[in-house]
């Protein structure tokens, strides 16, 4: 997929404009706070109708403006997302009422400086990685996840009630099992692929002995009514649901040891990139498309060799935001953008 152009209005600090991109490397430079991440976010928003850094769409609307709009153009698609409190999505002139009908037209892989938290941080960061990967390849997964979370919240509320409603809890148990297993069914499809790809991609990066392991709170990645029955007394005591996909995690191991505990800062960074490169492989395989790459300072802290290798590995269209351009980027065609207080110029 190639993103040819983007047009934005009322988006963060960006001055309303239209940009055309080159098919290979687009380098966006600018000082801290100039708007580099905002531009990547605008591209992502046109692809997925949401942000990769905020859960509240209102944050993306320029201060004191009533609405925002982003239009992205590829060879065969013009897609617009408009937001003024409610969202409207249009692809090639057809209004889409559901997110799952919209997303998927522009697969993106985001690589950010914060990805390191997928390795070093809490399990929620890793679940978020898996969930986003699944949304990207199976857009309906997003609504399954929303339903699952709703059931979960309702069930937790019942578990917290002093005099909990036993027969209502039964109904929620059935619903929880049904929705949870739908999430598991999707995750079960992806885990073997991740295991396989991590071996291949890590060798490309010059890493050895790397493996992926899914840590499931339920045996065989499946909730049974028996398992749920067993933990019910504990759940009532704690007032929350303690098994299910929302409690799972995964680990990246180096030589059989969890990277979270042992890897160096630079190693964590390279492993974070590795995960994103695997995401890329999954998207390529499942969608038969090369995604675009939104890279936000993700290669800082890498040694010269690894950084060069990393940029050689990616064949698709890249949007690379950085405070300072560096030599490793000189090997390919590129278009350079300089951004200053939200105003973007081609240089």
């Amino acid at each position, binding site marked *: 997929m190639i993103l040819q152009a983007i047009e934005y209005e009322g988006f963060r600090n960006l001055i309303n404009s239209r940009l055309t991109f080159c098919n290979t490397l687009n380098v966006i430079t600018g000082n801290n706070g100039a708007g580099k991440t905002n531009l990547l976010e605008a591209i992502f928003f046109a692809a997925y109708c949401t942000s990769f850094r905020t859960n509240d769409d209102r944050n993306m609307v320029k201060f004191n403006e009533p609405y925002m709009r982003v239009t992205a153009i590829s060879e065969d698609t013009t897609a617009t997302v408009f937001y003024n409190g409610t969202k409207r999505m249009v692809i090639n002139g057809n209004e889409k009422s559901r997110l799952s009908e919209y997303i998927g037209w522009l697969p993106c892989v985001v690589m950010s400086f914060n990805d390191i938290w997928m390795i070093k941080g809490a399990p929620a960061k890793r679940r978020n990685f898996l969930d986003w990967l699944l949304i990207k390849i199976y857009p309906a997964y997003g609504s399954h996840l929303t339903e699952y979370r709703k059931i979960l919240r309702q069930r937790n509320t019942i578990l917290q009630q002093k005099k909990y409603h036993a*027969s*209502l809890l039964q109904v929620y148990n059935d619903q929880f099992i049904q929705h949870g297993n739908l999430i598991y069914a999707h995750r079960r499809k992806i885990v073997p692929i991740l295991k396989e790809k991590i071996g291949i991609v890590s060798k490309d990066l010059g890493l050895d002995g790397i493996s992926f392991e899914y840590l499931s709170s339920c045996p065989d990645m499946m909730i049974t009514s028996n398992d749920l029955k067993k933990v019910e007394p504990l759940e009532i005591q704690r007032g929350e649901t303690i098994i299910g996909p929302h409690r799972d995690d995964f680990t990246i191991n180096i030589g059989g040891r969890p990277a979270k505990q042992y890897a160096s800062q630079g190693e964590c960074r390279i492993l974070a990139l590795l995960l994103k490169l695997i995401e890329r492989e999954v998207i390529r395989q499942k969608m038969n498309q090369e995604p675009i790459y939104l890279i936000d300072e993700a290669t800082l802290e890498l040694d010269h060799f690894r950084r060069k290798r990393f940029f050689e590995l990616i064949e698709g269209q890249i949007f690379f935001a950085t405070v300072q351009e560096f030599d490793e980027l000189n090997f390919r065609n590129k278009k350079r953008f300089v951004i200053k207080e939200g105003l973007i110029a081609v240089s």
Partner: protein
Amino acid sequence: MSLIEDLIEKLQWLPGIGKKTAQRLAFFLQKMDVGRIKELTDAILKARLELKECSICHNLGETDPCEICSSPNRNRDMICVVEQPADVMVIEKIGEYKGLYHILHGVISPIDNIGPEDLKIESLIARVKEQNVSEVIVATNPTTEGDVTALYIARLLKPLNIKVTRIARGLPTGSDLGLADTTTILRAFEGRNEL
């Protein structure tokens, strides 16, 4: 407090009316024909004073029991369970369904502090026990809350050996009966599944 502030504040008593909308309405009302305003306030007062909740089905009407419950032309062995009185209006407009109704006045949602006791579920069970009902159709909205409410009702009716059905998922998930078109609702009724 000035007269206009007072009006703006009172308009916000209504659900879904925030300060902005209340302001807009207040300034609109201020310019409105006095005769029309009287018609409006009379209608509100009359509805409040004269509309009654039917003691059988909990629908709102001018009589108790309501028109539907007291009609000799309705099929008495079918009860269609809906969330709100507005849903009855939607189904009645289509004119195909000839049975009776039962209005829950909400759906189960623990996070909103709405449990089964807060809805007209107990009276539904009592009704089914008393009357000779052969089928209960649960037509709550196709949301997670609507589903849970339907399943909960089905659980309670199971021991009574009554056929409990749920309207088909022809309606898009998360939608509202009132927003669907006639053919969609008809199809949802025809394709109902046993719970």
